[in-house]
C-alpha cells in the first residue's frame, strides 16, 4: 500500500500547490514571459496572474475529468459491496457454495450460487472452444496471408460484427440457431448451453481477432525475415516463429474475449433456456449469473435478502471479470514493455 500513499500525497500536494499558486499568484515556470516581470507595468502583471489562474484552473478541471474513470470503477465496486453486504450478513457463506438457488421457496429460501457459476463457466468455455481457433485463424490470415486490400475490407466488417447489439444476437439464437441445434442433437428445443456458447463465441470473436492481429503485426519483421532466410516456408514461419513470438498478446486477447463472454447478458438470457437446475451437459438449459440477475431483479421486492443476494451475484461477476481483465492487462503490458 506504500505506493498508494505516496501517489496520494503527490496528488494532494500538487493540488495544494496549484491552489497556492492560484490565490497568491506564485510564479509558475511553465508560463512564458515570466523573466521580465520586474519591468512590466502593474496592470500587465495583474493580467498575467489572471492568465495563470485560468491555466491552472483549466488544468485542474481536466485532471478532475481524468480521474473520473478511477472514481467510477471504485464507485461500482463500492456500491456493489455496500448493497451486497446485508446478504453476506444474513446468509452463511457456506450456503453460497451450494447448488440450489431458490430464494422464493416458501419453506426454506436457498441461495446456492454453484449452478449459476458452473453454467457461466460452461458457456464461456464452450464459447472459447469455438472462438479461439476461429479468431486466431482469421487474425493469422489477415496479418500474414491476406492482400492489404482484403484486410482494408475485412477489418471494418469485423467491427460491424462487434457492433451487432447483443439482443439481436440472442434473438437470432432463438429463431435461427435454436431450431438447427434442436434438429442436429434431437433435443426438444434448441435453447441450451450449446446455443449460448455459439452465440458468445460470435460476440467474443471481434475482440480476439483485432487484438491477436495487432500482436501478430507487432512481431519484428527481423524475426520473420530470419526464418524465411533459413529456408522455412511462410506457413512454418507463421506457426513456429510469429505465433510464438506474439503469444502473450494472443493469450491476452483470449482473456479479454473470455471477460466479454462471462459478462454477456442478453444473448445467454435469451438463448440458453434459463433452467435453474445444476447443468449436467451442454445440451441442457442453463441459467448463468448474468441471466439470473436480469430475470429476478425486476420482480424482487426491494431491500429483501433476495434483493441483496442478487447484488452479491453482481459482485461475484464484477470480481471475476475484473480479475480476468487484469490478467489480460498485465500480459499485454509486459508484452509492450518487451517490444520497446
Amino acid at each position, binding site marked *: 500500500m506504500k*505506493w498508494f500513499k505516496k*501517489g496520494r500525497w*503527490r496528488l494532494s500536494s500538487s493540488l495544494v500547490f496549484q491552489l497556492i499558486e492560484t490565490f497568491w499568484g506564485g510564479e509558475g515556470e*511553465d508560463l*512564458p514571459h515570466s523573466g521580465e516581470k520586474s519591468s512590466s507595468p502593474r496592470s500587465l502583471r495583474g493580467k498575467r496572474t489572471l492568465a495563470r489562474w485560468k*491555466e491552472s484552473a*483549466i*488544468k485542474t478541471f*481536466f*485532471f478532475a*475529468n*481524468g*480521474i473520473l*474513470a*478511477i472514481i*467510477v470503477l471504485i464507485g*461500482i465496486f463500492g456500491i*456493489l459491496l455496500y*448493497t451486497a453486504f446485508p446478504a453476506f450478513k444474513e446468509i452463511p457463506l457456506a450456503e453460497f457454495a451450494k447448488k440450489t438457488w431458490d430464494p422464493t421457496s416458501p419453506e426454506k429460501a436457498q441461495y446456492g450460487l454453484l449452478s449459476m457459476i458452473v453454467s457461466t463457466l460452461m458457456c464461456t468455455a464452450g464459447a472459447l472452444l469455438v472462438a479461439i481457433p*476461429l479468431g*486466431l485463424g*482469421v487474425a493469422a*490470415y*489477415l496479418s500474414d*496471408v491476406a492482400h492489404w486490400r482484403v484486410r482494408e475490407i475485412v477489418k471494418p*466488417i469485423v*467491427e*460491424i*460484427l462487434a*457492433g*451487432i*447489439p*447483443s*439482443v*439481436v444476437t*440472442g434473438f*437470432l439464437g*432463438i*429463431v435461427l440457431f435454436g431450431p438447427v441445434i434442436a434438429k442436429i442433437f434431437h433435443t426438444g428445443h434448441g435453447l441450451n448451453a450449446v446455443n449460448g456458447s455459439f452465440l458468445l463465441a460470435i460476440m467474443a470473436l471481434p475482440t480476439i*481477432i483485432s487484438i491477436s492481429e495487432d500482436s501478430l503485426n507487432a512481431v519484428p519483421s527481423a524475426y520473420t525475415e530470419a526464418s524465411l532466410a533459413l529456408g522455412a*516456408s511462410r*506457413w*512454418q514461419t507463421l506457426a513456429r516463429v510469429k505465433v510464438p513470438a506474439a503469444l502473450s498478446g494472443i493469450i491476452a486477447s483470449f482473456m*479479454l474475449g473470455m471477460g*466479454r463472454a*462471462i*459478462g*454477456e*447478458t*442478453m444473448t445467454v*438470457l435469451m438463448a440458453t433456456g434459463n433452467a435453474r437446475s445444476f447443468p449436467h451437459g451442454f445440451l441442457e438449459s442453463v441459467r448463468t449469473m448474468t441471466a439470473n440477475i*436480469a430475470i429476478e*431483479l*425486476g420482480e424482487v421486492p426491494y431491500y429483501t435478502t433476495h434483493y441483496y443476494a442478487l447484488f452479491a451475484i*453482481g459482485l461475484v*461477476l*464484477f470480481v471475476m*471479470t475484473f480479475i*480476468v*481483465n487484469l490478467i489480460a492487462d498485465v500480459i499485454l503490458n509486459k508484452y509492450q514493455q518487451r517490444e520497446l
Partner: protein
Amino acid sequence: MKKKNVVQFIGFLLLRVCLYSVLAILLLFLYDIGRKGGGAISWEFISQPPRRGMTEGGIFPAIIGTFLVTIVTAVLAIPLGMFAAIYLNEYAKQTRLTRIIRLSIRNLSGVPSIVYGLFGVILFVNILRFGTSILSAGLTLGLLTLPWTITASEESLKTIPNSYREGSLALGATKWQAIRTNVLPYAIPGMLTGTVLGLARAAGETAPILFTGAAFYLPYLPKSLSDQFMALPYHLYIMATQHHAIQQVRPLAYGTALVLIVLVLGMNMTAIIVRYRLRRKRRW
C-alpha cells in the same frame, strides 16, 4: 511438390476457411434479419404505436425512446470522454497515477453491462432519486460508454503531431491556448467519429436499461426526462421472449430487429466511413 509446401497449402486453406466462416455467419445474420424483417417494415410500422396488446401496430414509441436515451448518453459521455482524453494526452505525465487511470479505463470497458445496470439502479434510481426514467437509463449508458469515448478521443488526439503544439507554444501561447487553437480543431472530427461508435453500442444495449427506466409498454410518449420509456432493444427482447403470443408477433420482432440493426450499423458505418476519409485526407 515438397512436403512443406503441401503443409503450407493446407494451413493457409484452413485460415481461409476460418475467415470465410466468420464472414458467412455475419452474412447469415444480416440476410435472415433483412429478409424476414423487411416484410414487416412499412410506414405504419415506423410511425405508429403498438396496438392490441402489441400484436399489431408499430414501434414508434420505442424508436423515440431509444433516440432520447441516446441523447442523454451523448450529453454525458461525449464531454466527459473528451475532457478525460485531453487530460491524459495533453497534461498527464507518466506517473503512477496516470497508469492507474489508464488501467481503470481498460477495466471499466470490461465491466459486464448488467453490472452497470445494478450500479445505475442504486446510484441514479435510488440514491439520486431520478426514479426509473430516461435520465437514469441515459446516465447509466453514459457511464458504460465512457471508457470507449475516452479511448477514441485519445486516439484522435494522438494523431495530432507535436509540432502543432510546439509551434503554438513557441509563439508564446499558454498550454490551454495551444490546445484550444492548434490541437482541438484538428482532433475534434476524429473524436466525434470515435464517440459515435461508442454511442451506437450504447443504443443497442439492453441489460443496463432493464431496471433503470425501460418500460414493457407505454400508451403515450415520454413527456420529460423523468418519464419511463420504451426502447428498441428492450422491445425486441419482449417481443422475442416475453410476449404471450410469441409466434404471432415473430414478424414484428423481426421488424424491430431490422430497425435496431439498421440504426446501430448505420451509426457504425457512418463513423467508419468518416474515419476512413479523415485518415486518407491527413497528410502531415
